[in-house]
C-alpha cells in the first residue's frame, strides 16, 4: 500500500485543480465536487485505521522515500505511525464535514473558498505524513496560506486584523523553529557554533534524528527544545502565546473555525510528540533550572496556567465563539500537561485528548455556526430560551457540551482522566491544580447553555427559529457517534498510539536516568536507598 499517503496528499490537490475549471456561478457543482474530493480523501484514509502494524509496534508504515534535493539531503519521505494516522483520520473527517457544513454558510466567491479548503487539506495531511524536516517545513508553511485567505476573505468584520495576526504570529514561531532545524542539521554534520558536529552525511531525515537523540549534548538539546517550543507553543496555543486564537476563531467562517480548532491546533501538540519529545529527551529531562524551574517544570506551569486562565477568561466572554476559543486554550493545556507527564498514561491521554478536542470543539463551532446562520449573531445575550424552540438542536448541543466538559461515557472524560492519572502519579499537585479546570469548565459551559437555551425567549426574532434540518444533523452525527465510541470503548484508539508512546516514554526514561546518573554518583553512599524512597515518598511527603 505504499503510495497511499501520496494519494491522500494529492487527491485534494487534484480536486482543487479540477475546481479551477468549473465555472464560478455553478455553485452546486462546486459544492458537490468538493464534497466528492474530500469524501474520497476520507475514504482513502480509512485503511490507516485498519492497519494492524500500528497496533503491534511503533514503527512507521506506508513509507515512501524518494530523492528530492540531493545536494541538501532533502527527501520526499513519507510515513505514519499510529499517532499520525489518527490525526490524519481526524483531518480527513473534519475537512469533509467542513465542506458539507459550508453549503449555505458561504455565499460569495464559492469557487475560491472550496479551492482553499482543499489546499488546506493538502497541507494538513502533508504535515502529518512528512518524515523529512525539509518536506515537513514546506507543508507546515503551505498550510498557513489557505487559512490566511479563509479568514481574510470569508471572515467577519475584523477579518483582516485576525488573518494577518494569525499568519504573522505563526510564521514568527515557525521561523524560530526553522533556525532550530538548521542548527540540528549542522550539528549532525559539521557542527554548529561551539557544538561539535557528529560527522554524519547531511540529512533532514526525521527518523535519523530520533536515533541520534542520545548523542546530542544536553545543553544543545535545551536550546533546540526551546526553539522548537516557540514554533509549536504558538500553534497549540499555550499561554501566553494564545491571543491570536480568539481573534482568528471569531472572525473565521464556521468551517475555518472547525478546522482551526480541530486540526491546526493539533499541529503544535503533534510537533511536541513527533519532534521535541523523542529528539530532545535530555534537554527535557535535564535538571538545569531557569528561575527555579526545569524544562518540564516550565512547560507544565504554562499548561496549568493555560487551563485555569483559559477557563476563567472563557467564563466572562459575551461572544459564543470567543468562549469556545478560550475553552480551547484550557483544553490544550490539558493535552500539554498529559504530554509532559511523560509517562504512558499521560502521553496516551494527551494524544487521545487531541482527537477529543477536535471532535467536541469542532462540534461546538458547528453548532454555533448553525444558529449564526439563522440569526447572524454570536452574542450570548441575543439568545435565550432556545430549548423550547429548537429541542433537537438543544439536545445535540448538550451532548457535545457534555463531551467537552468531560462527562464519563463521553470522549472528553477518557482523555482528561488518563491525562490526570498520568500527571497525578508524577506529581499530585499538577493534577490537583489541573482538576480545578474541570470545575471551571463545567461552570462556564453550563452557564453558556443556561443563557442560550433556558429561560423565556426574550427576543422576538428567536421565536421564528427553525430547528436543525437533516443536513445539519448529518454534519454533527459522525462527531457525536465518535464521542460516544471513544467514551465507551476507547481501547482501539489507545492501541493505535500505545506502541509509539512507549518508545517516546522509554527515550525519556533513559534520558532521565542519564540526567540523574552524575548526581547519583556524587551521592554514592546513600544513593541507592534514597532513589527507591524518593519514588515512594516524594508524592506525599509534603
Amino acid at each position, binding site marked *: 500500500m505504499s503510495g497511499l499517503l501520496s494519494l491522500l496528499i494529492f487527491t485534494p490537490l487534484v480536486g482543487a485543480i479540477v475546481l479551477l475549471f468549473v465555472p464560478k456561478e455553478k455553485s452546486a457543482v462546486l459544492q458537490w465536487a468538493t464534497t466528492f474530493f474530500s469524501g474520497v480523501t476520507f475514504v482513502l484514509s480509512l485503511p490507516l485505521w485498519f492497519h494492524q502494524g500500528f497496533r503491534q509496534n511503533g514503527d512507521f508504515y506506508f513509507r515512501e522515500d524518494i530523492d528530492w534535493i540531493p545536494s541538501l539531503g532533502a527527501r520526499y519521505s513519507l510515513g505514519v505511525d499510529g499517532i499520525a494516522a489518527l490525526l490524519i483520520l481526524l483531518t480527513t473527517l473534519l475537512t469533509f464535514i467542513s465542506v458539507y457544513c459550508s453549503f449555505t454558510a458561504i455565499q460569495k466567491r464559492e469557487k475560491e473558498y472550496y479551492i482553499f479548503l482543499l489546499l488546506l487539506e493538502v497541507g494538513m495531511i502533508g504535515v502529518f505524513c512528512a518524515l523529512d524536516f525539509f518536506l515537513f517545513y514546506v507543508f507546515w508553511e503551505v498550510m498557513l496560506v489557505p487559512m490566511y485567505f479563509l479568514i481574510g476573505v470569508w471572515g467577519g468584520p475584523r477579518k483582516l486584523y485576525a488573518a494577518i*495576526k494569525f499568519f504573522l504570529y505563526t510564521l514568527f514561531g515557525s521561523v524560530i523553529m526553522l533556525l532550530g532545524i538548521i542548527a540540528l542539521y549542522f550539528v549532525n554534520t559539521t557542527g554548529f557554533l561551539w557544538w561539535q558536529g557528529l560527522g554524519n552525511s547531511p540529512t533532514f531525515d526525521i527518523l535519523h534524528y530520533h536515533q541520534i537523540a542520545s548523542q546530542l549534548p544536553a545543553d544543545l538539546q535545551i536550546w533546540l527544545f526551546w526553539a522548537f517550543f516557540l514554533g509549536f507553543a504558538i500553534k497549540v496555543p499555550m499561554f*501566553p502565546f494564545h*491571543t491570536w486564537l480568539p481573534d482568528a476563531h471569531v472572525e473565521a467562517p464556521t468551517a475555518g473555525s472547525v478546522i482551526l480548532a480541530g486540526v491546526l491546533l493539533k499541529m503544535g501538540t503533534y510537533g511536541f510528540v513527533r519532534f521535541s519529545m523523542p529528539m530532545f529527551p535530555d534537554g527535557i529531562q535535564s535538571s538545569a533550572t531557569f528561575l527555579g524551574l526545569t524544562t518540564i517544570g516550565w512547560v507544565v506551569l504554562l499548561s496549568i496556567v493555560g487551563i485555569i*486562565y483559559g477557563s*476563567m*477568561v472563557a467564563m*466572562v*466572554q459575551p461572544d459564543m465563539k470567543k468562549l469556545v476559543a478560550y475553552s480551547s486554550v484550557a483544553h490544550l493545556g490539558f493535552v500539554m500537561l498529559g504530554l509532559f507527564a511523560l509517562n*504512558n*498514561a499521560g502521553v*496516551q491521554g494527551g494524544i487521545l485528548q487531541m482527537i477529543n478536542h477536535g471532535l467536541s470543539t469542532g462540534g461546538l463551532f458547528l453548532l454555533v455556526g448553525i444558529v449564526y446562520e439563522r440569526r447572524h449573531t454570536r452574542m450570548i445575550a441575543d439568545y435565550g*430560551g432556545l430549548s*423550547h*424552540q*429548537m*429541542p*433537537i438542536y438543544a*439536545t445535540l448541543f448538550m451532548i457535545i457540551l457534555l463531551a467537552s466538559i468531560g*462527562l*464519563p461515557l463521553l470522549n472528553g*472524560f*477518557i482523555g482528561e*482522566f*488518563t491525562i*490526570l*492519572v*498520568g500527571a*497525578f*502519579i508524577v506529581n*499530585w499537585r499538577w*493534577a490537583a491544580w489541573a*482538576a480545578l479546570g*474541570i*470545575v471551571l469548565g*463545567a*461552570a462556564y459551559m453550563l452557564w453558556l447553555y*443556561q443563557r442560550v*437555551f*433556558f*429561560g*423565556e*425567549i426574550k427576543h422576538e426574532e428567536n421565536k*421564528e427559529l*427553525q*430547528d*436543525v*434540518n437533516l443536513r445539519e444533523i448529518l454534519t454533527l452525527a459522525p462527531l457525536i457517534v465518535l464521542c460516544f465510541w471513544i467514551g*465507551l*470503548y*476507547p*481501547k482501539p484508539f*489507545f*492501541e493505535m498510539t*500505545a506502541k509509539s*508512546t*512507549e518508545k517516546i516514554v522509554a527515550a525519556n526514561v533513559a534520558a532521565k536516568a542519564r540526567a540523574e546518573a552524575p548526581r547519583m554518583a556524587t551521592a554514592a553512599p546513600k544513593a541507592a536507598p534514597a532513589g527507591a524512597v524518593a*519514588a*515512594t515518598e516524594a508524592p*506525599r*511527603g509534603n
Partner: protein
Amino acid sequence: MKAETFLPWIPLFPFIGFLINGLLYLVSHSKMGDKDAPKGSHGHGEGHDSHGHDAASHDGHDSHGGGHGHGGHVDIPFKAVHSLVGPIASGLSCLFSLLAILAWWQETGGHHEIVVKLWTWVPAGENLTWFGAKTLEFDVAFRIDPLTALMIGFVSFIGTLIHVYSVGYMGHDEGYGRFFAYLNLFMFSMLVLVLGANLGILFVGWEGVGLCSYLLIGYYYQKDFAADAGKKAFVMNRIGDVGFILGLFACTAMFGTIDFTKMFEAAAKDPGTYAAGGAVTAACIALFIGACGKSAQIPLYVWLPDAMAGPTPVSALIHAATMVTAGVYMVARCNVLFRISHEWAVKTLGENASVFAMLTHDASYVVAVVGGVTAFFAATIGLAQTDIKKVLAYSTVSQLGYMFLGCGSLAFGAGMFHVFTHAWFKACLFLGSGSVIHALSGEQEMTRMGGLKNLVPHTYRTMFISTLAIAGVPFLSGFFSKDAILAETFINGHPILWALAVLTAGLTAFYMFRLVKMTFYGEFRGTKEELAHVHESPATMTIPLWILAGGAIVAGYLGIPKFILGKENAWEKFLEPIFPPLAAGWMPEPHHASHALEWGLMMTSVVVAGIGIALGWAFYSGAYPFATPGKIAGALPGLYRWVRNKYFVDEAYEWLFVDRLIKKFGRFLWEVDARFVDGAVNGSRHLTVGGAHVSSWFDKVFVDGAVNGVANVLQTAWRGHRSLQSGQTQGYALAMTFGIFGLVCIYLILS
C-alpha cells in the same frame, strides 16, 4: 441462570427506556423539517406560548399544576407510550435486580462478591506508580455483594414506585416525555453507580446522577431560578468530584488499580505500607470531599435546598432516597481505607490526641465531625423554614449528616441502615408533600396551608406515619437506625458528637411535627377558591405512598439490635462480607458496651424525641400566626433572622465565589489578556510597524540620500567637464597624446 447474566441488564432497561422516551419526545416536539415548511405547522406553537405564560405566574415554586389549563396539548398516544415505557423500564430493572440477588445468593450464600467484567475501558499502559511500575487498566465491570444487593434492591423498587407516582403527578405537564426520559436516565446512572466494580465505574454513575440531577432540577428551565438551581447543583457537585477524582487517582497511585476487590485486598493485607505518611488518609479525605458534594454536607450542602426547584417526584427519588445517599454508599464501600486511616492515626498519635491532630490524621474522624455538625446545623435551619419542601430538604441534609456520623464512627453498617430506612420515610414524606402541593395546585408555603387532614386523608395518614418514623418514635424504622448510629457514636468515643446528635434528634422531631401541624391541622389559611379545589390525589399517587409508609414502619425490623432480641443483628450479619478483616495489629479493639448503657442511650434519645414532638405539637396548635413561636422569634429577632435566612451562607458563597472569584476575577483576567498578553503581541506589531517607519525614513533620508547625494555630487562635479565633450577630434587626439605620455611616465617610474 447465573447472577452475571442478570447484572448488565439491570441498568440497561432504564437506559433503553431513556432512549425511547427521549427520542419520542424529540420527534413529537421538534419543529424540524425542511426550511420551506410554514412555521408552527406541527401544532405546538400555541402550546409553547401559553405554557410560558403560565410558568411565569408561578414563579418561585415547583410549578406543578401550572399545566392544568392546557393539558390537551400533549399528544395522547405519545403520552400513553411514555406512561408505559417509563415505569416498565424501571420495573424490569427492579425485577432483574431481584433475580440477580436471588441468583447471587444461591451461588455464594451471600458470602462474597460476583464480578462481571464487560470490557476493558481505559488501558493506560505501564506506569511508574508510588509503589513501582504497574500496568494500569480500568475496566467496565459490575459486581454484586451484600452492599450492592441492598442498594440495587431498594433503588430499583423505590424508583419504580416513584415512576408510577409520576404518571399521576406529571400527568398534565407539557414535557411529560422529557421528564420520563430524564428519570429513566437517572435510574440507569444510579444503578451503574451501585453496581460498579471499581471506582471508575462508580464515578461514571456518580457523574451520571449528577447530570440527571442537573437536568431534573432545571426541568422547568423557562424559569431562571430552576435553571440557576440546576447549574448550582452541578457545579457544587463538580467541586466535590474534584475531590473524588483526586482520591481515585491516589488509589491508582497507591494500589495500581481501582478495582474494589484488588484494592481492598492489597490494603487489608499490608496496611502499614499504604498508610505510611498519611497516604490512605489523604485519599480518604479526598474521596470524602466528593461525598460531601453528592450527599450535601458542609461546606457543599447549599445546592440541595435549591434543588427543590425540580418536580417533587425528583426531590423524592434523587434528592432524598437515592442519589444523595451515594456519598454514604461510597464511604461504606471504601470502609477498608477509612478503617486503616483511623488505625494509623491511633497508632501514630496515641489514644489522647488533640482534636486538631485527629482531624489531620484520621479520615473517619473528619467524616464523623462533618456529619455530626451538618446534622445539627441543617436541623436548626429546618426549624424556621415555611416552604414545605425546603423543610424536608434541610431535614434530608440533616439525616445525611447522621449517616456520615455513623460511618465516621466506623459503624458503616449502622450508617447504611439509616440510608435504607431513610429512603422509605423520606421518599414517602416528599411524595406526600407533592400530593399536598398537587392538591393545592402548586402551593408550597405552609403558612398558606392548614386543616387538610380530612381533605387528603391518605396523604395525611402516610405522612404522619413517616413523620413518626423520622422523629424516632419507637418501633418504627427510623427509631432503630437512628438509635444504632447514636449508640455507636457514643461507644466509639465521640461523646460530644453523640450529645449533638441527640439534640438534633429532638430538633428533628420538633420541626417535623411543626410541618404536620401547619399542614394538616388547624384552619385552612389559603383562599376559598383554593380550598374548593383541594382534592385527594389519584390512586397512582396514593398507592405508592402507602407502600412507602409500609416500608417506613417495617424496614427497621431488619436490624433489631442484639441487646433487645438476644439474636445477632440480621442487618450487620448480612453486611459482614463487605468488612474484610485487616492484617494483624490493624483491627480496632472492639468496644463493648454493657446492656445497661445501651438501654440508657436508647432511652435518652427516645425521651429527647418525645420532648421534641411535644413542643412541636404544643407550639403549633391554635390559629396562625402561632403565638409561642412568634413570641420566641420576637424575643430573639437577630437569631431568628439568621436561622430564617439559613445563616446567609448562600449569600456569602455567592458574593465570594461567584461574584468575586469567578466573575470579577474572570473579567480582570480578560482585561489582562486584552491589555497585556495581547497587548504585547499588538505592541510588537506597533513596534515593528513603527520600526518600519523609522527604517523607511532612514532609507529615504540616509540610504537613498547617500545614493542620490553621490549622484548629485557627481552631477555637480562633472558639470564643468561637459565642455570637454566638444566633439572636436583634434582636442581628443591632444588629450589622448597627453594620456599616453602620462601612462608611459607612470610605467617608467614604477618599473
